[in-house]
């Protein structure tokens, strides 16, 4: 035992000291987001608000996004019930992703950087670092849970009960712990931190998509999903603590598994076998384009598969939509009046959501060039006859192509599956889906261009583009729930684009955003061509 965990407490305290700013940001960020929207929900609940929201969220499309509620009649739908219904899954997901990144950052990443090696040369146990990182995340999530609970209680709303508040906080904290253990296990299996992060986030994504399917078809199956154990606690309504217990058992088992895996491997190694490489490069590698394709290949393929699966998962919901309409007279009338079918309306909304996710990939590709630069991978290449323009435009080109293929897979996956599950009742064909997807292409280009602009002028801001993407996502995501003012909504680029097939195509907007994006890319190039390359020293 001593050999394994000696002095983990020193590392633990060291982590708290090193990370305190990040921890405060983390707890305040997720905490305020999770617990601070009560007044907004009180606003929505006024008048017929609760009943209207209840009906809206019965729509399978909405269930697939925000999750189910145990409430069966609109009359029982309280502010508390609505708050948990709309917020819990999303906030839990945030907490989970944050924990994944943090745990891998402190375990596998430090190992890759050679820091662990140095630490291990002192009187520190073999697995003390993993224990310390894990302990840190658990402590953070406990504080986060208490913070959220306290925040909810402070708002003093009748239906947001004491017990419910604690359960709500505990569910989000637990989501963080689940994320941490998934990260810790992947950190042992994968050969490097990047693949560990990628696969762990991929698992979280799959869990989210899987629960979208089971929530719509049969919510009991979501109980088998670790992500389900967060929102299925149903705070303020059923107040079910059982999923928390499942999650605790799951986490303990996963931690034991992770430590066993870590005990069985060498530092810096993983469980996936390393093959002997090539002595000579393939012809396809021998160019800037070939090199960049190779460097981005793993991540790109991972994301593309994700897009396809995501499209297919949402597509599978189309089969249930008519059944839902048959059972809900009010919604049926609503759709009959508006003149758009429920499928069309869903397509418009979900396509916007998917295209935000598709936009991540081009940003990743563009930011990769700066990552390569700051890791000094390019030092020796700068001294060859390769131009900066080649580096820049090859990257932009790959990013745009990745966006095009991503759109194809997401929209195609959605359409293909939707058409097959709707069988003869299909009112849309595949071209409608593809048109709805590529309609959002300007927004993908716009995010690519923002990343390119950052690359050229202020490469350290490359990550801020993700923040803006997240911001636009949240804005559009909550637009269907909250009624946001027009000007506020327009700060997200997607809001300018009409949602097909519900709305019709708007050529001037499409062209304008595309042109702005291309101009930004060119401006970015001007900066990239004249700035100092950043190289450690």
């Amino acid at each position, binding site marked *: 035992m001593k050999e394994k965990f000696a002095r983990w407490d020193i590392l633990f305290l060291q982590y708290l000291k090193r990370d305190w700013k990040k921890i405060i940001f983390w707890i305040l960020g997720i905490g305020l987001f999770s617990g601070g929207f009560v007044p907004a929900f009180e606003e929505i609940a006024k008048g017929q608000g609760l009943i209207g929201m209840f009906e809206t969220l019965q729509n399978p499309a909405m269930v697939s996004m925000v999750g189910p509620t145990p409430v069966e009649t609109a009359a029982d739908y309280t502010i508390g019930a609505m708050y948990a219904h709309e917020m819990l899954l999303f906030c839990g997901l945030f907490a989970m992703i944050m924990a994944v990144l943090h745990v891998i950052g402190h375990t596998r990443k430090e190992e890759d950087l050679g820091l662990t090696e140095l630490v291990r040369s002192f009187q520190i146990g073999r697995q003390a670092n993993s224990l310390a990182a894990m302990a840190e995340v658990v402590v953070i999530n406990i504080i986060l849970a208490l913070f959220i609970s306290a925040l909810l209680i402070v708002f003093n709303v009748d239906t947001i009960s004491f017990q419910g508040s604690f359960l709500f906080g505990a569910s989000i904290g637990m989501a963080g712990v689940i994320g941490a253990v998934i990260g810790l296990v992947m950190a042992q299996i994968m050969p490097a931190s990047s693949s560990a992060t990628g696969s762990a986030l991929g698992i979280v994504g799959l869990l989210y998509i899987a629960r979208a399917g089971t929530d719509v078809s049969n919510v009991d199956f979501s109980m088998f999903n670790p992500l389900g154990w967060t929102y299925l606690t149903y705070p303020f309504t059923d107040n079910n603590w059982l999923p928390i217990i499942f999650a605790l058992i799951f986490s303990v088992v996963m931690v034991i598994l992770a430590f066993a895996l870590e005990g069985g491997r060498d530092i810096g190694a993983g469980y996936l076998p390393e093959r002997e490489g*090539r002595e000579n490069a393939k012809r396809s590698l*021998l160019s800037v384009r070939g090199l960049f394709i190779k460097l981005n290949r793993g991540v790109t393929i991972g994301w593309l598969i994700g897009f396809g699966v995501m499209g297919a998962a949402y597509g599978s919901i189309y089969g249930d939509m008519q059944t839902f309409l048959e059972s809900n007279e009010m919604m049926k009338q609503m759709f009959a009046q508006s003149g758009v079918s429920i499928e069309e309306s869903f397509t418009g909304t979900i396509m916007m959501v998917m295209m935000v996710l598709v936009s991540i990939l081009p940003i990743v590709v563009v930011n990769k060039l700066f990552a390569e630069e700051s890791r*000094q991978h390019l030092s020796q290449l700068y001294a060859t006859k390769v131009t900066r323009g080649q580096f820049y435009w090859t990257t932009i080109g790959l990013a745009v192509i990745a966006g095009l293929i991503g759109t194809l897979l997401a929209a195609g996956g959605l359409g293909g599956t939707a058409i097959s599950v709707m069988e003869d009742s299909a009112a849309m064909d595949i071209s409608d889906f593809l048109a709805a997807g590529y309609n959002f292409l300007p927004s993908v280009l716009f995010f690519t261009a923002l990343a390119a602009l950052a690359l050229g002028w202020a490469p350290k801001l490359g990550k801020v583009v993700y923040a803006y993407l997240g911001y636009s996502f949240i804005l559009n995501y909550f637009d269907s729930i909250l009624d946001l003012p027009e000007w506020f909504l327009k700060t997200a680029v997607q809001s300018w684009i009409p949602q097909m097939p519900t709305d019709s195509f708007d050529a001037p907007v499409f062209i304008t955003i595309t042109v702005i994006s291309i101009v930004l890319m060119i401006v970015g190039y001007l900066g990239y061509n004249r700035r100092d390359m950043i190289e450690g020293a």
Partner: protein
Amino acid sequence: MTEIVKIKGLQKKFGKFQALSDVTFRVGAGEVVGFIGPNGAGKSTTIRALLGIIKRDAGKAEIFGKDVWKDSLEIHKRISYVPGDVALWGSLTGGEIIDLFMKLHGGGDKQKRDYLIKRFELDPKKKSKGYSKGNRQKVGLIAALSVDSDLYIFDEPTSGLDPLMEAVFQEEVEKIKEAGKSILLSSHILSEVERLADRVVIIRQGEIVESGTLDELRHLTRSAVTLATEKDVSKMETVEGVHDFMQKDNQATFSADNKYINDILMEATKLGVKKFEAVPPTLEDLFMRHYEG
């Protein structure tokens, strides 16, 4: 002599920090110039400015008579560069990376590559993330030495190499030197510079403080002399050009200004020389003198 590299009054600031305040030196055709200085003195910054990786604030910098920023690509066709810390893509093998570097440079020699891989004892089939510091350095060196260039820029090229490999590197550099190529060699390993360099440039705090051939530099400094005489050696203490005089019986050790060496010898013979040893200053002595004095 044609000038391959010509730098005059080069300046560079990073924010408020003046990294280079006045860098002036040149590298002639077929010449090996040793570029020495402690960490943070501005060696790598100078080299990056030469490569057009960073943009200078003031001064002139030319390679092959062309501006290093405006005509960087023209210049890059004919130079090879090895950074002090070769960072590689972990997922590619050493062999793949060497091929890539050679291709991007253009005009590589496949046979030379295979020969160098053997000489440096590199396993080219291994993914580079498994390489040690020294092995990564070998990848950079092999790639740079396998292509034909007119100017080779090495920034602490042998850091992390074992002494055997260091020797291999020095032999290979001597070969390119014999072939009439120019080399700018920045290094901490002064014996390496002493062995290879025709001229030495010393940089301190972003400024060139000394440059010249090793002999010229030596001339400016003192040799360490050990002298034993029949008569009382203490008379030597007052002779011009003698410093740090220490006596034990009739044997003395002192440092002697090289320009007074003749006078010192004349005085010593009057005392009846039993033993006279003069050791010229090593580059290390020169170096230390600049940083301690």
